[in-house]
């Protein structure tokens, strides 16, 4: 009996310090990721003089805008303790529907929202399976992913046709004051995303749900709505990324989403969120997305063969994970000698 009490009090003590620790951990994570980006871009100058320029920074930010939008949705889903594997399929669906149904013809102003609504419907279908039929998120979104990509394949008979609507070309190819339009978009999206996740009631509900479902229910969080919405938002984001890619490349392919599955998760995790849900913030995720894109462009610019590039990419994810480990922050804190109670 006494030993049980000991064990209980031990867990209690650990939980007490966690809340205090969590706040600085995420801020530190986000800052560390951004610092890593800057260091990497500056260091790339050593490799080749054409790198590390302002132009390269703009290119990285333009390319990162896809991943930032995508990992916002993925981040919300992960925050509630889920995972969305259907993103690549929905990206493709959004892109393919945009070029085949709209193309550069008229009606983009009402057809684009309609396509996004279809993508949202896919997210809703996933959510129905997860919330009401109790299928694990991992499996359910994998199933919708297989179904959606199969449907996109059948719909286009294997070869998507059509071009991009003008409005998307303007969004992705335009520029203002020498800065590409996607960079403005990225900044606005990042701020709005951060506000939604960290400064709204909905955002707080998501954290509550991801931390402790039962406690959230007792506290009056509308569980069903808050569980369903992230999947819908995530799918709409993915559909929009499909449109952005269409604007960027002026066309769609059936494999356009394939390279975004793992980065969308990696950006969230590198940004310091737990894959198990309940913590993390969008600033870190934005940093993670930019870091991953920086790594990708630097490696591509060095001109290594594909295999070595891939190895380095994997290695950098590993190093980032190792550097951002929780113990490391504890050790750093130990060095600074700040006294902590109960730790």
């Amino acid at each position: 009996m006494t030993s049980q009490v000991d064990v209980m009090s031990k867990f209690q003590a650990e939980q007490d310090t966690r809340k205090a620790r969590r706040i600085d951990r995420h801020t530190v994570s986000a800052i560390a990721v951004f610092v890593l980006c800057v260091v990497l871009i500056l260091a790339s100058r050593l490799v080749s003089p054409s790198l590390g320029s302002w132009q390269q920074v703009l290119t990285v930010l333009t390319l990162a805008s896809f991943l930032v939008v995508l990992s916002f949705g993925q981040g919300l889903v992960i925050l509630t303790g889920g995972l969305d594997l259907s993103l690549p399929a929905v990206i493709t669906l959004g892109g393919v529907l945009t070029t085949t149904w709209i193309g550069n013809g008229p009606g983009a102003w009402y057809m684009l929202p309609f396509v996004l609504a279809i993508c949202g419907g896919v997210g809703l279908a996933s959510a129905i399976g997860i919330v009401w039929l109790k299928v694990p998120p991992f499996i359910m979104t994998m199933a919708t992913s297989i179904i959606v990509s199969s449907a996109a394949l059948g719909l286009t008979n294997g070869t998507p046709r059509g071009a991009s609507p003008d409005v998307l070309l303007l969004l992705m190819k335009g520029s203002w004051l020498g800065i590409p339009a996607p960079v403005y978009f990225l900044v606005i999206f990042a701020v709005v995303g951060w506000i939604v996740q960290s400064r709204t009631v909905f955002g707080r509900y998501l954290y509550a749900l991801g931390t402790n479902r039962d406690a959230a229910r007792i506290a009056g969080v509308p569980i069903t709505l808050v569980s369903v919405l992230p999947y819908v938002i995530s799918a709409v984001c993915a559909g929009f990324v499909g449109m952005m890619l269409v604007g960027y490349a002026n066309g769609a392919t059936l494999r356009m989403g394939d390279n975004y599955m793992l980065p969308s998760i990696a950006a969230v995790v590198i940004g310091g969120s737990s894959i198990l849900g309940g913590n993390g913030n969008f600033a870190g995720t934005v940093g993670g997305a930019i870091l991953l894109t920086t790594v990708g462009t630097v490696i591509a610019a060095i001109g290594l063969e594909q295999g070595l590039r891939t190895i380095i990419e994997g290695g950098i994810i590993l190093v980032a994970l190792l550097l951002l480990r929780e113990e490391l922050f504890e050790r750093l804190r130990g060095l600074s000698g700040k006294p902590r109670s109960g730790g």
Partner: protein
Amino acid sequence: MASLTHSTPHRMRRAQPMKLLTSGAGIVFVLYVLLYAIYASLQPSALSSSTFTNLVNNSVPLAIAAAGETLVVLSRGFDLSVAGVISLTNVLMAVYPQEGPFGALVSLAICLAVGGIVGAVNGWLVAILRLQAIAATLATMIVCQGLALVILDAPGGMVADWVSYELTDRLFGVLPISGLFVLAVVLAWLVFKRTNLGLGLYAVGADEQAASLSGISVIKVRFAAFVGAGMIYGLAGFMLSAQTATGNPNSGTPFLMLAFAAVALGGTSLSGGRGGLIGSILGAATLMLLQKVLFSGGVSSFYTGIFQGVVLVLAIVFGSAFARLTGRRTTA
């Protein structure tokens, strides 16, 4: 405490035959038999030994990969490196073919070693350094894919003739040899399941804290699960190479989704602690059979995915509903 010791043997005695039927493996076995009946009615040659051998040969790499994944999933983990290990071993087999039966043995040893090393790295990252399993194995998967691309940058190469002919053949004209490898994995699993490590696997997956408090070394169990899984992926890569007779640096990619689908279809809980390897093997076989059935039913191969997805969801929904009806606690 007293009520526990009373109820346990009673429940087990009552539930034995019923349990077999409502377990994940039982449900997916019934599903497989039903699908095979449909297949036989669509395609009269389905009952011939050569068609069956083909089917087994097609299913074996996925079945073995899913079996490996099950080990990690049971310990409440995820292992994405399955795709990387299969690509890597496949490429090794195609670029460095070893002729003859002895050569095949050498190749097999290399595949198992490569898988084991990758598994050990995963185990080190996840069990010892406590990184998040999805993120860490994602990184090792990418590194393995990169290594595969360095060894062979485009599809090509030739797997040793002995491997590609003998391992896809039939023993005594009826028994598919590749099936024997699956059988070997199953036998190894049945033995492993009864060892301390095997019991620990379920305990850690069900409740890590309770397992650790009752004296199980969580680190050791997790590490062993990753190493074992890695070696089994190596075997899957070996069998895939026998099957395709050529190398492709991206050959492992389709296995990522399908392996998890097979595990889930086979009734293993993705939150760990419940399920088993045999269900996953049957799940993999069912997914591959479904493709054949749809093809012989005249469905365009474009739409195969729609059916695979729907079957996956239905299997899980009915599996848990059926289990609830027969009184088995799904959350246990």
